[in-house]
């Protein structure tokens, strides 16, 4: 099973090299690599489900001297989501890019991004995490600027500089921890870290750096332009996976490594910022005139929900109520990943077939692109949090936890945010189902619409029904 961990890193990395060296068969190599990587993620998930948390010492050196890879329920689930979303987006991308030179530039960077995501989710070492963050940041920026258009390049540049600032803060925190405890191994640190000036400062620095990267309000300013001007499959992965990788690290640090250091007051601050993100992001999504911008602002809002869980998880005593809240958090994160990827892919189809993504001019899209419109509707169900989507379960646990902990503010924020989400989704659907008769015949573009439909369907239907096994898996984790 531990070989699956190496596979998750070595396969996409080898694939990146192969697509670079063999540009003519790059698409076939990349899809093959994607399938193999997805199999590895499945193997790891089943391994964690049967054997519990796994770890692997690279080079055979004990953790601390060397670098250890670790996988528990949380990271195995996120790795599986990464594989499914990235595979679907790969199939989509194989039809999306028209010219051979575009494809030759896209595939190596794409597989490097995938490598970075897997490496980050598996890493058990602080400095190694910094390297994976940089690999992730640089490959994401390179992909976001792929079109070479001015808006995309300007957004990518800002994305890069903000990301670097975040990495530097993270690295400053790492230095501080190494000065205090003499190790970079996360597992060892979680036993050693004690409340005190160096732990507080390190946590504050690393969290600030990661919040910049995960675009938590008010540090979200760079996200909408970058996500809205990237090519569709790239936007999908940026919104669904890349920001979530930084969120995963915040979660890992707060609930695992620094569990003894974090205070309810600090968690409340994160919760308040999350509330700000929900309201601000949803409001701007409602105001957006372009579909991609709407989706990007919706990402700001959806990340906000995830931070609402922090004060709850700190307030609730460990026990079934807290476990359920933690499960709800993961469920919400997974659902958003699938739904947002599906949404961005569907928007990409509209943009390519209709030549624009202006919401006001969508009239009749439902007649011309029925499958795409259906994918948007399914993704919308998940973004609003209607049953039977996974987000419904997630938000339900959020509300239950808030009631349990007596923190009513989060209840109000969730309700308002969901109403706003319903408003912006129905606004889009309202235009898409516009009454104006549309002369064209319905179009289906299978290789682009299937991935979008499957991802959205996963979010709206499958995840909600797979709650029980997932809860069990998570108990092995955090």
């Amino acid at each position, binding site marked *: 099973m531990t070989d699956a961990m190496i596979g998750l890193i070595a396969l996409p990395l080898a694939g990146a090299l192969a697509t670079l060296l063999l540009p003519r068969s790059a698409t076939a190599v990349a899809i093959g690599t994607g399938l193999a990587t997805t199999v590895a993620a499945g193997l790891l998930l089943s391994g964690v489900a049967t054997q519990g948390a796994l770890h692997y010492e690279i080079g055979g050196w004990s953790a601390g001297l060397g670098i250890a890879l670790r996988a528990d329920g949380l990271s195995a689930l996120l790795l599986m989501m990464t594989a499914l979303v990235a595979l679907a987006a790969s199939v989509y991308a194989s039809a999306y890019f028209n010219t051979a030179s575009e494809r030759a530039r896209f595939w190596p960077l794409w597989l490097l991004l995938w490598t970075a995501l897997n490496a980050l989710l598996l890493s058990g070492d602080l400095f190694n995490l910094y390297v994976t963050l940089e690999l992730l940041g*640089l490959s994401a920026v390179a992909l976001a600027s792929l079109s070479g258009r001015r808006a995309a390049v300007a957004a990518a*540049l800002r994305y*890069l*500089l903000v990301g670097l600032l975040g990495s530097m803060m993270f*690295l400053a925190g790492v*230095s*501080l921890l190494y*000065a205090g405890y003499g190790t970079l191994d996360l597992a060892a640190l979680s036993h050693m870290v004690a409340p005190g000036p160096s732990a507080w400062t390190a946590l504050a620095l690393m969290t600030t750096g990661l919040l910049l990267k995960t675009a938590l309000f008010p540090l979200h300013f760079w996200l909408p332009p970058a996500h809205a001007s990237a090519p569709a499959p790239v936007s999908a992965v940026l919104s669904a996976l890349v920001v979530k990788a930084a969120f995963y690290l915040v979660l890992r640090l707060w609930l695992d490594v620094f569990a003894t250091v974090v205070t309810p007051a600090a968690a409340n601050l994160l919760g308040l910022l999350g509330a700000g993100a929900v309201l601000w992001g949803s409001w701007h999504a409602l105001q957006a005139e372009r579909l991609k911008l709407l989706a990007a602002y919706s990402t700001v809002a959806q990340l906000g929900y995830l931070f609402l869980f922090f004060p709850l998880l700190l307030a609730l005593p460990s026990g079934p109520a807290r476990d359920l809240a933690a499960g709800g958090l993961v469920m919400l994160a997974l659902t958003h990943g699938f739904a947002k990827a599906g949404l961005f892919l569907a928007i990409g189809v509209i943009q390519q077939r209709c030549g624009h993504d202006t919401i006001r001019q969508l009239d009749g899209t439902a007649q011309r692109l029925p499958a795409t419109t259906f994918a948007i509707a399914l993704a919308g169900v998940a973004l609003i949090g209607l049953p039977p989507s996974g987000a419904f379960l997630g938000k339900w646990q959020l509300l239950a936890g808030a009631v349990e902990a007596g923190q009513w503010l989060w209840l109000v924020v969730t309700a308002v945010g969901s109403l706003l989400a319903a408003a912006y989704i129905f606004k889009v659907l309202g235009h898409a189902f516009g009454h104006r008769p549309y002369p064209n015949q319905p179009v289906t573009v299978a290789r682009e619409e299937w991935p979008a439909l499957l991802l959205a369907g996963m979010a709206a239907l499958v995840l909600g029904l797979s709650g029980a096994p997932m809860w069990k898996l998570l108990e092995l984790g955090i």
Partner: protein
Amino acid sequence: MLTTQILYALTGCMIVALGLRGALLHASVLQRIVAINVMGAGVFMLLIAVAYRGPGLPPDPVPHALVLTGIVVAVSATALALALVRRLHAEQEDD
């Protein structure tokens, strides 16, 4: 506590702050890139100071290796940022 270690570590903190301030305030994007590099150098100084054990004693090699990696990562990021700047200027001139 070693005086040398503290002296260099505190200087590192100052350089980090100078870099951060420049990165947030500068209008010129090239100088923002320089500022981020300065900030990185400050962090590297912290690490090298942490590694120092005193005159005549072998320093801890781990932070040295980390800084070497960090320097290469920093130059990679700088190179990409400068390529983006160049492309942006080319696009602006086309307008």
